[in-house]
């Protein structure tokens, strides 16, 4: 008794000395608002003391649980959670939904079930019935949901945003229920809802007058529902990607386009030419973004139809056949383009692109990926007129000579994203590019001309670098990586795959980048467990690790990984020398979701089974098909019921070829 009292006194004393007691909850809440980068930060905060624990519980609004088993307890721990993201829980049953809905009640405003399975319309009915203030629901990929579930959703009268992508079983009837029930809808995504046609969409347009955003991609709709859609007073975004039922002829009937429309996506609508486009954009003065990717050829006529769209800021023409006159007309008609994407457009020439760019000096983002005809002339024009560029993507512009890349660093100093994959850029070019001090994303994959010297310049002068891609840039060695790791402490994504000169030194250097989330070092045979251990210790936020074909990594790399990388979600161990022991130790990583273990010589069926059973959060496992017969079917059924998906591969063991011959083979393929 006495002892207990003494302890209470001690507690009180301690709390008196706690400086945080002088701060109001609001101030601590403000502090907590900044603890967003790493989920572990919040966790360690809450573990400090009881008051911190309760403050953290009260502060939290968003919850993204790792395991569905824990939902009942955490839902009670966090009384003010209004946004529930269940994308990490593959198994959400009707019972879980009932528990959530009862615990949260009207407080719940948003729920994301897009990656979850095993719930039905009954669960949704409970959820919607108990949580009447639901504003946001993501039910994408719920391929089993039927109209009855849609009818349950329709009871969510306050719903404003709803995603139903790939809900293929839902028909017009279900959508009709939602249209009538959810009058406040502002956003609805029905991508790939193949059962929904004109009637359902027409009803949405008639009943849900508040719609701002409508995604109708790949729906079997025709023009019949369009007049009603275009009458929606607040419609801002309309996605008609892959709506093959809409063609020029049917669009010709439309008298008046939507006046409020800001974004129009008509990708993959091959049946719509400039005629249909002009009918659809007739009167849409506010249009800011137009996406016509993989559509009909961009000719003079099509570009002319853009003339009336004076506020257009962004055009995406990816994959279209583009004519020179078309490009010139775009240059003439569009007053102030900020964003232009010509990725994979055939027909982009120096002449057309140069003309366009001299007119569009305000351009911020330019994508000319795989425009293989352009040369240094175009690049000179890009750099000359578009000095405010923040993003330039020019993968595989193979005719651009190595000297031309110097221009980028001379003129486009505001660049934040630069994709030079598969280009002729060399060290001089990189030296120049390193002047772009804001560079955050630099992709130098398959740049066979660059070496450590060039990379060192980047490392020295681009401290904001977040993403670096050196895939198959085979002349890069440890010293280059060392320069990057030293100069770019904020690096989050690093890809050094098939840079076969890389050793543990690189990984040890990278372990200083504490924010590193993704590390890909496929096919680096000199990397060993030592390097992996260093990364595991240094990079606590590591979520994705690819060490395929790192033949020298063994169980000794896995044990520190299992111990330190508690955020690891995805790992590829194929061709490494990891055995049962390593795999079993990895199973202790509670949030590990995806695992690829092909051609692991030391892996036995028993070890695999134990690891699979121990790793409760797995959602995707890629295995060699030989295991299918070696393990009992019951095991797979059990794991599938937990929400794990198996992908079986039957590839034969492949030895790695060197990058030079790899590229030669690639070029041969292209010629052929």
């Amino acid at each position, binding site marked *: 008794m006495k002892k207990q009292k003494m302890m209470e006194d001690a507690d009180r004393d301690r709390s008196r000395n706690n400086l945080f007691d002088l701060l109001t909850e609001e101030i601590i809440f403000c502090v907590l608002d900044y603890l967003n980068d790493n989920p572990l930060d919040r966790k360690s905060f809450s573990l400090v003391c009881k008051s911190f624990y309760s403050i953290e519980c009260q502060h939290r609004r968003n919850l993204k649980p790792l395991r569905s088993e824990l939902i009942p307890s955490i839902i009670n721990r966090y009384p003010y959670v209004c946004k529930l993201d269940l994308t990490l829980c593959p198994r959400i049953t009707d019972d879980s939904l009932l528990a959530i809905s009862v615990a949260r009640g009207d407080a719940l405003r948003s729920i994301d079930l897009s990656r979850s399975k095993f719930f*039905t319309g009954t669960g949704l009915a409970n959820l919607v019935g108990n949580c009447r203030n639901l504003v946001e629901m993501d039910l994408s990929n719920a391929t089993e949901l039927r109209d009855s579930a849609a009818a349950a959703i329709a009871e969510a009268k306050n719903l404003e945003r709803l995603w139903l992508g790939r809900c293929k079983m839902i028909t017009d009837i279900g959508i009709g229920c939602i249209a009538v029930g959810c009058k406040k809808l502002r956003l609805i995504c029905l991508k790939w809802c193949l059962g929904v046609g004109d009637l359902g969409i027409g009803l949405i347009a008639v009943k849900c007058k508040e719609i701002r955003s409508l995604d109708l991609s790949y729906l079997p709709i025709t023009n019949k529902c369009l007049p009603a859609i275009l009458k929606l007073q607040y419609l801002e975004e309309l996605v008609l990607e892959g709506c093959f039922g809409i063609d020029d002829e049917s669009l010709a009937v439309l008298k008046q386009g939507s006046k409020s429309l800001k974004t129009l996506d008509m990708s993959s609508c091959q049946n719509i030419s400039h005629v249909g486009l002009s009918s659809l954009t007739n009167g849409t003065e506010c249009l800011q973004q137009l996406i016509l990717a993989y559509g009909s050829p961009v000719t003079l006529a099509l570009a002319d139809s853009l003339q009336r769209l004076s506020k257009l800021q962004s055009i995406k023409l990816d994959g279209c056949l583009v004519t020179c006159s078309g490009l010139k007309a775009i240059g003439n008609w569009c007053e102030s383009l900020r964003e232009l994407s010509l990725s994979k457009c055939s027909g982009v020439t120096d002449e057309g692109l140069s003309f366009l760019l001299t007119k569009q000096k305000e351009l911020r983002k330019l994508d000319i990926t795989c425009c293989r005809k352009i040369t240094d002339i175009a690049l000179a024009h890009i750099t000359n007129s578009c000095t405010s560029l923040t993003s330039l993507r020019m993968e595989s512009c193979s005719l651009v000579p190595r000297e031309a890349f110097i221009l980028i660093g001379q003129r486009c100093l505001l660049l934040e994203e630069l994709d030079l994959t598969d280009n002729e850029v060399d060290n001089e070019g990189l030296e120049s590019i390193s002047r772009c001090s804001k560079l955050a994303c630099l992709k130098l994959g398959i740049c066979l001309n660059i070496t450590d010297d060039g990379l060192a310049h980047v490392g020295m002068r681009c401290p904001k670098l977040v993403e670096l891609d050196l895939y198959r840039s085979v002349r890069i060695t440890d010293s280059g990586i060392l320069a990057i790791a030293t100069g770019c402490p904020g690096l989050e994504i690093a890809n050094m795959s098939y840079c076969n000169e890389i050793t543990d030194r690189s990984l040890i250097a990278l372990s200083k980048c504490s924010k590193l989330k993704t590390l890909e070092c496929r096919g680096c045979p000199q990397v060993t467990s030592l390097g992996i251990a260093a990364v595991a210790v240094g990079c606590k936020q590591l979520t994705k690790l690819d060490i395929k074909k790192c033949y020298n990594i063994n169980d000794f790399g896995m044990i520190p990984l299992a111990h330190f990388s508690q955020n690891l979600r995805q790992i590829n161990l194929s061709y490494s020398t990891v055995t049962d022991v390593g795999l079993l130790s990895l199973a202790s990583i509670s949030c590990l979701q995806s695992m690829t273990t092909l051609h692991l010589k030391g892996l036995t069926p028993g070890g695999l089974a134990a690891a699979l059973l121990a790793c409760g959060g797995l959602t995707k496992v890629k295995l060699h098909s030989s295991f299918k017969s070696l393990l009992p079917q019951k095991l797979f059924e059990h794991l599938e019921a937990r929400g794990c998906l198996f992908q079986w591969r039957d590839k034969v063991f492949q030895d790695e070829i060197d990058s030079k011959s790899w590229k030669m083979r690639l070029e041969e393929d292209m010629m052929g």
Partner: protein
Amino acid sequence: MNVKERPSVENWTKPSAIVNELPQNTSINNQSFNSTNSQQHQQKCVNPSIMDYNLEALSSKFNQSSENPSFLPSSPCNQTKITNQDDVQMNQMLQNGKLLGWDPRAMLSNLSFLEQKIHQLQELLCMIVGQRNQMYDCPEELFPQQQQLITADLTSIIIQLISTASSLLPSVKHSLSTVSPLLGQLPQLNGVLCPSTANTISGLHLQINGDPMQQNVGDLKPSDRSNPVEQNNSSIEVHEFKEEDNADEDEHLSPGSYEILQLEKEEILAPHTHFCPICGKGFKRDANLRMHMRGHGDEYKTPASLAKPHKEASSELVLLKRYSCPYAGCKRNKDHRKFQPLKTILCVKNHYKRTHCDKTYTCSRCNAKKFSVLADLKTHEKHCGRDKWLCSCGTTFSRKDKLFGHISLFQGHTPAIIPLEENKGLSETLNHAENLEAVSKVGRVGFSFSTNDFNGNDIQGMVDLKGNIEEACFSPFDFDACNLGPFHQESPQPTFDGLGSSFSFLISGDMSAVQSGTNNIG
């Protein structure tokens, strides 16, 4: 004198007794008027109305001319004179009414008259209010009469306004507008209370429904009840507007204006495909029909006349052919009190088979529905087993787009999920139960839609439809339609509604079949 012309006391605003000189005079005047001429007046005032109607009906029926609305508002105008002047004015009034052609100017004058009249009334009331304190002795018993008079005066203003407005409508509702001004007028003339108005109205109805050809001025005798056509015409009130819309169809034929043909039962059921357009006799071969046609006269001997039988012929000259069902007691039988003739020989065939024959064709899919006309079965089979598109209100639709059209039209209606599609969850079965409940509830709504569709077509079509639905309603219960004849006659509409609502769920399939059947006929 102006005030005297308008005998009225402001009693409705000031219920307490108001005595002044003016009403005294007028009421005395009125009283004497009533005492001396009331009997005569009553008759006289009714007569012109009959004449109005008769002339009007004739002109609309035979000339298809637009109605002359101006005579209607003019009658209350004359009415003011009547109160003070002699009955002779009555004839004058009628003549005035008749002579005036349809004219916007007339309407303008009507309106200005109305304005004047209201103004006068206003002045009068002001005066009464002003004299309110000057209490004079006055016979108390005059007040109710004054009250009636002023009320009637106001009523006549209102009715005048309505009739003036209604004359603007494209379809002229002459029967309504003919009656209504008189309604306002009559009590005033008679000096009687409202209940007597009702009598007058019923009296008028008889006249209206009576055969116009046989009516004479002053003939108040109820029309001959044995006349079947008159019974037919009694339905005028029910589908009054429909009749206006389809004036050219004119199925309310006066007796004698068409010829009634009645085929024998054997003739109707014979598998003939060629029918004589004149007598309805059926033939297996067209050649035989042509041979038969020759017997009807020389004009049928040319191929041209055979090709287009009697449509070309002027209806005034050649008597129309209508058909009677040979089944005694049937509403379609010429001896029935409310005989409704059948329009074509095909109508006869279908009617006879549907109503008086066994249903020999059974749907092979559902094994439940039976039909006596093969075409009905085929129509049913098109829909049988298909997804029924169901609304939360219980209305079913054969087509999904119709359902969605319905839902987009009405607030709160949602598509109902047919539970058979997926058999899970208790909530769905509950829904289903609700749906079923709603089905029976809203069956009426569904029906009224279908009739509305028919309004646009023709009156005959609608009558046929109704008849058929009745049959459809009764047939599952082996009711004999003709036994229920008198019941129908009493109150056809409510009876139908009651049955329709309770059984429409069962017969919904039949209804669509019937509709298409009547479409074919029409």
